[in-house]
């Protein structure tokens, strides 16, 4: 019984404003509030609210036969709550149907797993708690930022209590094997690994509105026929996409909403086909083999590697400078510093510094900066100011600690008094 597993990435980054060297130490307003708000309101209107409505309609129409999963980042949730709370409500309405699974990730959509395991655990735990609070579900499936995955991640996730993990069905990892089965990571047999079906995902996610594509226009019937054609050699077809592809990457005029509305009927026309969520797939299916991923892979770009975020020295410099602060930030444990520190970890900041394609960003996730150099300059300026604040907080902390220690002793105070006149005498 082959099943279609739909999972959507819902992510909105907080873009930084053009923070210059003259702002450093003067003010600590890092984010471009106007831009973030405008972008989110627009996205909410053309994408989130419209598509959530459609999904709700489909769930009502097909009952338990239609299912979908979301991986919502913490920064996206922050922006919904801050600028468009009705989006949270619409996701909550979807959660209440029982046909929607919420997949966990790191709250700030960060690359923390690569640099600080403690930071990663903390971010995942906090985000799980938040999803539970908002949607009443304890996540059992995990998807890392931009599908960054390797063997070690699987081990870490198992320790955190997850049952399933989503990853890219990269050719170099799969080899001759098909992504349409459940696998298990070589590093831990107790976790289910679902691999993205790249061609079928990209047909909707990337190519749908491409008039130069020889399969354009894509109809629900045609797409369903493709899925049906692999039915004999498939147990779970994983269609993982960016939620932006509905209404934003492919605008409403391209017919993407009509396509999605017609898709369940077309797919379910074959009686043995159904929809599933990742958690359900892992529960029902048996892994057919082991997958070994010693190197990090992601769902990005041709190389399916980390070069979009860590391809050049500026990106590495920025990310290393950031994570070098981790122990200090956690030690100081000041809420506003922790908050800013997490925001600065959002992977998009590093992608904006990429020199790989220069102007070649997907239309719905543009680089807010004119050039990667501007992005790097801004980020480093922000980080420099952040470090100043951190140092100041550490000094305050040390001073207050010293004060509490020294208060009972009178001698320390006397010493200070003695030294004062001698300094004056020197002048």
């Amino acid at each position, binding site marked *: 019984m082959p099943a279609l597993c739909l999972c959507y990435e819902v992510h909105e980054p907080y873009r930084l404003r053009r923070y210059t060297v003259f702002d450093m130490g003067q003010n600590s307003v890092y984010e471009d509030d106007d831009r973030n708000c405008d972008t989110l309101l627009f996205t909410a209107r053309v994408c989130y609210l419209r598509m959530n409505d459609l999904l709700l309609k489909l769930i009502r129409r097909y009952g338990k036969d239609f299912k979908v999963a979301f991986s919502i980042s913490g920064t996206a949730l922050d922006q919904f709550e801050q600028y468009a709370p009705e989006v949270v409500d619409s996701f909550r309405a979807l959660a209440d149907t029982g046909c929607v699974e919420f997949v966990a990730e790191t709250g700030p959509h960060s690359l923390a797993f690569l640099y600080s395991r403690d930071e990663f655990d903390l971010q995942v735990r906090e985000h799980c708690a938040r999803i539970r609070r908002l949607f009443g579900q304890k996540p059992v499936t995990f998807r890392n930022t931009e599908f960054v995955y390797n063997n070690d991640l699987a081990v870490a996730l198992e320790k955190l209590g997850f049952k399933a993990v989503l990853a890219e069905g990269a050719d170099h990892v799969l080899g001759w094997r098909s992504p349409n089965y459940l696998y298990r990571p070589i590093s831990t047999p107790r976790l289910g690994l679902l691999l993205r079906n790249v061609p079928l995902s990209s047909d909707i996610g990337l190519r749908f509105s491409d008039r130069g594509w020889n399969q354009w226009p894509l109809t629900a019937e045609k797409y369903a026929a493709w899925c049906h054609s692999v039915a004999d050699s498939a147990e779970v077809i994983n269609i993982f996409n960016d939620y932006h592809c509905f209404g934003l990457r492919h605008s409403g005029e391209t017919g993407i909403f009509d396509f999605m509305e017609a898709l369940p009927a077309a797919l379910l026309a074959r009686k043995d086909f159904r929809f599933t969520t990742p958690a359900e797939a892992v529960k029902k299916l048996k892994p057919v083999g082991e997958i070994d991923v010693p190197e990090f892979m992601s769902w990005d770009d041709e190389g399916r590697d980390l070069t979009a975020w860590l391809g*050049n020295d500026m990106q590495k*410099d920025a990310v290393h400078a950031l994570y070098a602060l981790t122990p200090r930030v956690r030690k100081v444990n000041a809420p506003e510093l922790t908050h800013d520190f997490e925001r600065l970890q959002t992977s998009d900041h590093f992608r904006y510094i990429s020199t790989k394609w220069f102007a070649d960003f997907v239309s719905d996730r543009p680089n807010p900066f004119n050039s990667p150099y501007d992005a790097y300059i801004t980020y*480093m300026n922000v980080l420099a100011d952040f470090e100043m604040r951190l140092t100041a907080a550490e000094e305050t902390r040390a001073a207050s600690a010293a004060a509490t220690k020294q208060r009972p002793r009178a001698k320390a105070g006397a010493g200070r008094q003695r030294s004062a006149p001698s300094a004056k005498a020197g002048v």
Partner: protein
Amino acid sequence: MRVLMFGWEFPPHISGGLGTACYGMTQALAKKGAQIIFVLPRAGEGGQNDFLRLESASGTPISEDAAERMVRVGQDIWQENIRFLSVASPLTPYLTPQDYAASLRSLQRTPDSAETRSRPGAPFTFRLQGGYGPDLMSEVRRFSRLASAIAMRENFDVIHVHDWMTYPAGMLARALTGKPLVAHIHATEYDRSGENINTQVADIERAGLLAADLVVAVSRLTRQTVIERYGVRPEKVVVVYNAVARHEVERRYEIPPRIRHEKRVLFLGRVTFQKGPEYFMEAARLVLQKIPNARFFMAGSGDMLPQLIRRAGQLRIGRRFHFAGFLRGEQVDRMFALSDLYVMPSVSEPFGITPLEAMLYDVPVLLSRQSGVSEVLEHALKADFWDTRDMADKICAVLRYPCLAAELVKNCREEMKSIRWENAADQLMTVYHNVSGGN
């Protein structure tokens, strides 16, 4: 392809970027098989090259018959298109104070630099000074006659002229020989003078561009200026970007130990309105508030220099802001090699070759967005010339974050591989073929 080129500068008879561009361009064209006769107002010693024939217009005999024909076709060129006023106006497009003084002296030495005719009816000629003197307009007029005389005796397929000083010559030669005219525009009067243009120059520019069979602009920016300001038909204007000629041997310069811990920021260019030196100084003031041990160098001379020196004193940044004067040859190389960043804050820069030269020395560059070269350089920092805070922020970033400079330099090196005079020459050869009907 035989090309008759009229130019006002050619190394070593050089004053600015025009000569450098002509040199690189002709060298590459020669490699593509073009036979070039390059006519200068006055070619002195040491200017001979193996890749082209350098001709001096000065002293070319003009026969009575030729003069008559010139008068016939020349009448309408000068009188209908150009309001020629023989006023000793201060026509100093690329003039530095020193050059001005020098040309004034030479003018006083040879007060009668006009016609030299031995007897009536015999061929006559003019003597030209070259360069940019106070009587530039009469020089331009005389050059047009002399260059045309050369055009009448030589065989060629295309006339290619560089900037307005040679446009009258190009127009006259085209009228006399019927050969197609390609007008290359390296800078317009609007670039040089902003809105306070010299109308005579602008009129010559317009006439030359309209008369030309094809106009070659050095950037999209210049192409736009030509179309908007002079009403040249857009389909007649093509863009051919300049490039930079690689030095055969690049000497490496050691940074003296005593200044190794400091960072140096360079401005190199004429100190005039067009180049935006005051914005550089303002940015320097802002940077010094943040990085007190940075050093700023302003190399070049120009009419704004005295004013800027006063300004540096007024801002009390003189101990960190240095004026290097006009640099030549090896001094330029040394200056580039010592610099950590090259800044070109031009208010209006049709192309701007110096950033490319800086890049040859692995110096990162910060360009004004109002420059043609920023169209071809992706891997450069860019700022609007008026936004001195943004400029200062970027200067600080280069001085503070070594990764940034390294990445810029690395990517620029890659980018420079495609910015070659050979590519420009290929495009120009196509242009020649198109205007000469593919022969």
